[in-house]
């Protein structure tokens, strides 16, 4: 089938198999490999991207469902060499180790900070429940998210 969408501010026309998941469309057809696959039950959040500004797990969305939508991946977050404030906060606070969960964690954070009415450790922890990390024990991720929240408010 044919779809037309915007990915990282660029218009994309694509021809794809109906069953193609958004994550594989991004990774394999567009070469945007920053978005990762970490499970097969929509549990880990490594594939999180923004769909019309809201975080979604791109393994749970058909590419067809993104027809006409605006998709932002980790590659589209920074302004050139300038890291997005959330990326900067992760770097500043050692919020990543192996880096595999990081793109999903960062994209989930961007969306979470838009949604949160009150910035608190408890709210951040609950808000990131759908994103798993095996390296950091979440300590510095939470610290980074709180710092990014402070910086952008």
């Amino acid at each position, binding site marked *: 089938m044919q779809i037309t969408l915007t990915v990282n501010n660029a218009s994309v026309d694509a021809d794809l198999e109906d069953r193609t998941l958004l994550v594989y469309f991004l990774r394999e057809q567009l070469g945007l490999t920053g978005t990762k696959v970490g499970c097969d039950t929509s549990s880990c959040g490594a594939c999180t991207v923004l769909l019309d500004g809201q975080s979604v797990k791109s393994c749970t969305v058909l590419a067809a469902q993104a027809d006409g939508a605006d998709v932002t991946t980790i590659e589209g977050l920074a302004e050139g060499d300038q890291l997005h404030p959330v990326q900067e906060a992760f770097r500043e606070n050692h919020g990543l180790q192996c880096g595999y969960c990081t793109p999903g964690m960062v994209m989930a954070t961007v969306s979470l900070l838009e949604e949160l009415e009150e910035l608190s450790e408890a709210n*951040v922890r609950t808000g*990131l429940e759908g994103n798993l990390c095996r390296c950091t024990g979440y*300590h*510095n991720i939470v610290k980074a998210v709180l710092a990014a929240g402070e910086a952008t408010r």
Partner: protein
Amino acid sequence: MPGSLLGNAVRRVEDPELLFGSGRYVDDLPIEGALHLFFVRSPLPHARIDGVDVSRALQMPGVVAAYSGSDLGLNSMVSMLDRRIVRFPLALDKARYAGDPVAVVVATSVGQAMDGAEAVEVDYEPLPAVADPEAALAPGAPLVFDELGSNLAAGDQESGDPLEGADVVVRGRFVNQRVAVAPMEGNVVAVIPGAPGDEYRLTLYVASQMPHRVHEAACAQFGLAPAELRVVSPLVGGGFGGKTGLFAEAAVALAVALRLGRPVKWFESRSENLVGMDGRSQVQYVEMGFKTSGEIVGLRARLIGDAGAYGGFGGALAMGPTRNMAQGPYKIPKVRCDVAVALTHTSTTGAFRGAGRPEATALLERLMDMGADALDLDPAEIRRMNFLTKDQFPYTTVTGMLYDSGDYEASLDAALIAAGYDELRQQQAERRASGSRYQLGIGVSSYVEITAGGPNGEFGAVEIEPDGSATIRVGTAGTGQGHATSFSMIVADRLGIPLDRIRFVQSDTAEVPRGGGTVGSRSLQLGGAAVSGATDLVFERGRSLAAELLEADPEDVVVDENGRVGVSGVPARALSWSELAATAAQRGERLAAEVDFKPPGATFPFGSHVSVVEVDVETGKVVPLRHIAVDDAGRVLNPLLVAGQQHGGIAQGMAQALWEHLAFDEDANPVTGTFATYGIPSAAEVPSYEVSNTETPTPYNTLGAKGIGESGTIGAMPSVQNAVIDAVSHLGVRHIEMPTSPERVWRAIEAARAGHADDPWRRPPAIFESLPERVRRPPPPGGEETL
């Protein structure tokens, strides 16, 4: 400025590409024309394979090839436990666990390979199976390998009665449940065959902690000369002990690429990973004798390691690190440790964060708490009175380990102060007195562990490039720990070359001639020490060159604050590193050095943790409130990275104590094969951690560093379990197995309230009476290998 970097919280140099999303892991590599593999796996835990028919799969769209084990004719892989335990990368006559690969389908897309795999017909004859290691060792159990005549893969017993003379003996049967390694990136490979005339016949990209070991194993498997194969690990999404060797699917991928002459890829799904990359699993029958004063008289342990189907290293850990560490940080005059390693119809176990040392600490720290309870002593006090003291190092344990350095009491004191221990006990007393539904538990653990064991040292090289930048090549293979940062800090600190002018190279057999990899928390203390040694040699060479060119005494030549090499206090008389490299090049020399660093032995980090939990006595739910860790890994090079290792380690220990369990049903079918069913925690379940360090340097390397990668897990697991039990001990509960799930906690409380609290002890299985006598072999130089 030279000399000012080490010991500082330097931000990581490797982060930008990870944050921009531009870094490449194996599955991200653009490989033109790559075919995709998908494995047909046994749905049965134990079955005779009467036939594999791939003919229908070959008719499916996009399928290029499909092979059974006999089609590929691969050599077997031999277990380290017994040479009769052999594994064929694709099972031939028998499937021995649910998930055992039986056939492989090769197609132009992953989806087509999966569809093709559906069309492979395998004729299985189901056979009885056993998943429980104790049941596997009982007479009449279904055998994993008929050739052995039993499921005992290895084992032996020591002699004597270490409990003789005790006033009080405490006993328990403890289960250190099976846990999954579960790095966020599972196993993954890409193989590119070389065209005729290419430098390499095969290039293997693999997510690995030990690419040089993979290289060696692959050359042996396929009869390749070392120069014919290049192994590269690009970015790796976590390792934790699970990515150490040539796994079955990688061997198949190599074989398929060789046969078809086309590049192939395989990416392990999470469902495959959770039934394939299994960590530790151990059952412990342990007894400790005390004098009424609280002084330890002796320890008797009977351990059962679960090796899974193909005799995995995970089972052997009971005979290695757990036994070796059985004395822990205490004065224990006598230790007897008997070990049986069982084969089961489950995925083959391997190493996972801590690898045998969490189990050693778990048994000791449960027994110490039981001893404290029996003798009415405070858990902190009974530990303190039994610690080895700081004037006793170096110290040889009764299990034969040579402890390099330590100050155990200092770490316990620091942890108790940081926790506000006395105040916590006061709060606990108040909650108990008030009969609150939410009871407070305080768990203490002290540990000592082994890092950088093993007879092999590590390779490190430093070279000054013509432009004055530096290149580090090292044989360790980081998977997210921050080696690029910490190793570059060593070079920058000594040579005055800025961090962003240092190139860090690892995990490529074309660039690094040899390497032990990153396991057993060895990297900084071995690889870092090698890089440090090479840096010193480069500095000496640069200094003598500069002295010659500047007509100065080499003793007067230093690196100045601008990173130039010149006469101390005379800024005009200095040369840049690029000028020195150019001079060396004119003379046909490289400004470079290589070092193979070999330490005198393993190092022994230690520490103490205090964990605070809240238990809802009506529902059994446990909420971890605080976790305080004081871990001593010798001298700290970058506190930011050390704290990061502590955090991740603590989360893992806490997760095993409270949630994670890779479980099988009675018929050996896995029941926790996805992230939807396996209890891996999210940020919502864990608290922030309170971590700090004492610093007791090791004399074994110039950095004074020991390992920190696994300490958090080793210290946290027992302190969290102890905290849960402590929260309800006043109700009569004596022990709760891990994971301390709401159901288990609730049942333990109910049983105690009804006046029949479970006795944690039961009679050890009969297998221990028939184990052969242990033959003590001298450990290899540097101690036994740990992962």
